[in-house]
């Protein structure tokens, strides 16, 4: 073996940062594709929601002031938003799993910018969440979903990415504060369920009573689902530009907050 005294051949620090982002992304991809149970599991829930509500509510869905539409078409963008929500939060919270299983130590002791680690995790999480969401979209096409404007798919993907970035950032922020995975299920109940239930995924936000509506209005996913609906079926309750702006701000805030908290993590 070589002597200890020579300089380790290293890349420039910019390349090292790029390598760090790449390898965090690659790690997420490998872990995702190797955990077949998780892939099927995270696809199953949205799919069952689609089948049960999509077909179950076919007949009785007419709201005053809303154009007549097939409930399945109304629902699919909501389910896609829900898929992105679940997968992104899970990807962000995976920091907790790394802490529990010890791998976080390996990451924290490395001479690499913490921000690169966060970016890599975000890139990996977005990719896996996007794969899931697009699979759900394809599945829904098979059961009768009609996209009104095919060029809207690009815009829809943009919305998916924006939703993903925001909620991964949120997940990382939460995971950096929590110390163990027991709190994880608490987070799921207290936060994730209300978020997708009151996001306009299942029913229009305008349907809600006065005291419940504000929750929907401060919920970032509401604007994500609205944007998805606008892109895919041409119907939305808010102006597209509002949806984009809110999601953009949410994304930046959460990624910033999450990175800051992750930066301060000690183990």
């Amino acid at each position, binding site marked *: *073996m*070589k*002597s*200890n*005294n*020579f300089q*380790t*051949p*290293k*890349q420039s*620090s910019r*390349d*090292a940062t790029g*390598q*760090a982002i*790449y*390898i965090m992304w690659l*790690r997420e991809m*490998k*872990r995702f594709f*190797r*955990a077949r149970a998780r892939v099927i599991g995270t696809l199953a829930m949205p799919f069952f929601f689609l089948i049960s509500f999509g077909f179950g509510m076919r007949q009785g869905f007419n709201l005053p002031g809303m154009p007549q539409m097939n409930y399945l078409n109304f629902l699919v963008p909501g389910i896609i938003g829900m898929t992105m929500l679940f997968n992104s939060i899970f990807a962000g919270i995976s920091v907790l799993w790394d802490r*529990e*299983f*010890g*791998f*976080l*130590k*390996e*990451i*924290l*002791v*490395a*001479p*690499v910018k913490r921000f690169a680690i966060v970016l890599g995790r975000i890139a990996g999480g977005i990719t896996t969440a996007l794969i899931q969401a697009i699979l759900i979209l394809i599945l829904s096409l098979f059961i009768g979903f009609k996209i009104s404007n095919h060029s809207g798919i690009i815009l829809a993907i943009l919305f998916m990415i924006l939703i993903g970035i925001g909620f991964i950032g949120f997940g990382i922020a939460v995971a950096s504060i929590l110390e*163990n*995975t027991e709190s994880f299920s608490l987070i799921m109940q207290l936060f994730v369920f209300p978020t997708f239930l009151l996001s306009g995924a299942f029913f229009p936000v305008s349907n809600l009573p006065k005291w419940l509506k504000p929750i929907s209005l401060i919920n970032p996913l509401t604007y994500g689902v609205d944007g998805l609906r606008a892109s895919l079926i041409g119907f939305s309750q808010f102006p597209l530009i509002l949806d984009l702006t809110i999601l953009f701000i949410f994304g930046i805030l959460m990624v910033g907050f999450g990175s800051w908290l992750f930066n301060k993590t*000690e*183990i």
Partner: protein
Amino acid sequence: MLVIETKNLTKEFNGLIAVNNVSLDVKEGEIFGLLGPNGAGKTTTIKMLATLLKPTKGEAKVCGFDILKQRDEVRNSIGIVFQEPALDNRLTGYENLDFHARLYGLDSKTRKKRIQEVLNLVELEDKANVIVRNYSGGMQRRLEIARGLMHYPKVLFLDEPTLGLDPQTRHRIWDYILKLNQKEKTTIILTTHYMEEADYLCQRVGIIDFGKIVALDTPQNLKNIFKKPTLEDVFLYFTGRKIRDGEANQSEKFKRMRHRF
């Protein structure tokens, strides 16, 4: 040259002083043992030296770099094998090493070469493409030692390196440690409860209790001065016979939670 210099290194957690004004030095090329009962402050000291924790007071230098002001330089100079496993169980041995190499900025050619070198050292070449979840405890520990060496560190920290391992693996790991130290001049700092291990491997040992260094010398000197036949007797002389009820550490908590997954 001194690879570790600490001056009044202190760590306090909510009023509890885990590490209390520790001033110790480790010379280049030494094998140094940090011994102490549960909760004595060994792991906390090592975490501070590895820049994982910030000290409450005091200062320390690793390979001449300040642990607070030059953290990345410190991190580049040290390798560390933790007591609890820190591998990614869903990746292969090779992938774990590759991950580490890229994180530490090794270029492509060096990466490939070094991965082979360290795999050869710990004799895991033919298990490199096996998923780490399927490694035995001893194999995991050997892989972690290999990983700690990937970036040619000057100092290697080993926190309880042979804890819970079979005798064959233990002796092999001792061989790796001695080989590293003699051929590469890598400084080794290890913590252990196995006194015969400390006696066998370490050129000097420091006994830490309640966060303070209570003894620091070569094993032989300690045995002579305090007129004890074994290092374990010296240890018990300094730390007493009372059992320390420490808190469950990460790995113990994790093992108990395993059934949930």
